[in-house]
């Protein structure tokens, strides 16, 4: 793992530590209050703060998970080199696409 990847993984972990906590707290709050899906969507629709928070969340996940997975694969399997890096770059893109698809769906619906 290069110094840049190490830095990105630590920085994304720092973001996720707060983002995951806020995410879980929001879920608990929303469910405890007995909000319906429609009521939740009405709050997220057009909410720029929601969009910004979850965009950052998705970005951090898309950086953190593939770098960590790459480390695990390098330690536990003989897989190395460009094919590994390419596969995990694609995995990062997949996480980005799925994540932003969900964020925009909730933001625009």
């Amino acid at each position, binding site marked *: 793992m290069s110094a840049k990847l190490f830095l990105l993984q630590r920085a994304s972990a720092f973001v996720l530590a707060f983002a995951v906590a806020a995410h879980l707290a929001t879920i608990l709050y929303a469910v405890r209050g007995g909000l319906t899906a429609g009521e939740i969507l009405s709050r997220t629709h057009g909410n720029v703060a929601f969009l910004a928070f979850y965009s950052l969340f998705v970005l951090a996940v898309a950086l953190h998970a593939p770098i960590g997975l790459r480390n695990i694969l*390098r330690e536990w399997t003989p897989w190395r080199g460009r094919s590994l890096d390419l596969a995990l770059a694609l995995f990062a893109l997949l996480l980005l696409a799925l994540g932003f698809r969900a964020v925009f769906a909730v933001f625009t619906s």
Partner: protein
Amino acid sequence: MTAAEGSGTLGVEIWRGAEQGHFQTFAIPRRTHQTVLDVVTEVQREHDSTLSYRFACRVGMCGSCAMVVNGRPRWTCRTRVSEVAEDGRLRLEPLRNFAVVKDLAVEMTQFFDKWKEAKGSFEPGPEPKRDFAVVPPASKERQAADAGIECIGCGVCYSACDVVAWDEGYLGPAALNRAWTLVNDVRDRGQSDRLDAVSGGGGCQACHTHMSCTSFCPKAIAPTYAIAGLKRAMLMRSLRGAP
């Protein structure tokens, strides 16, 4: 001295062979203040002269007598039998994570090659100063170097490290600890190359901070902290825009 020390018999299982082999059992008399190295020496001199092992100083300076004793890597010259024998038994194996030459002797070439890979030697630069460098003993750098400088290269940390077991390219705790002492050497002029060397695929960032090296080091050095220092140095350099 415990009641058992100095009397009775010790059952000693010793690895015989190389990568493939078996344990051979010897019965050795317990003696007062007996060390594990004393036991191995007695086996070789009195029972089986074909037993191979390595030692030199016998006083904890040379770092050549390390073995796995009852599952844990130790320096055998400074390890008393009374401290480690379990139910009057010792099980002696060659160090883990090293190729076995024969019996208890391991091949240490890769271990020391990694010190070179980590740029673990002083680099004076093209024009070394002619006068003595003044390094205040209380300075932060000097104290950080002091904390790791007494390494004797015994390989105990390398044997204890899980990351070394997983990743053959990992430089290991001893080489990284040595690099950290030099990062803190204010006279050294090879820092850029050194930080490059310890930031590659098998560099300091591969450490999982299991702290086995720190736990087992017979010299009470903490390579984990040295590696953490290298990570900080690497990150700071990375933030400044270096590769």
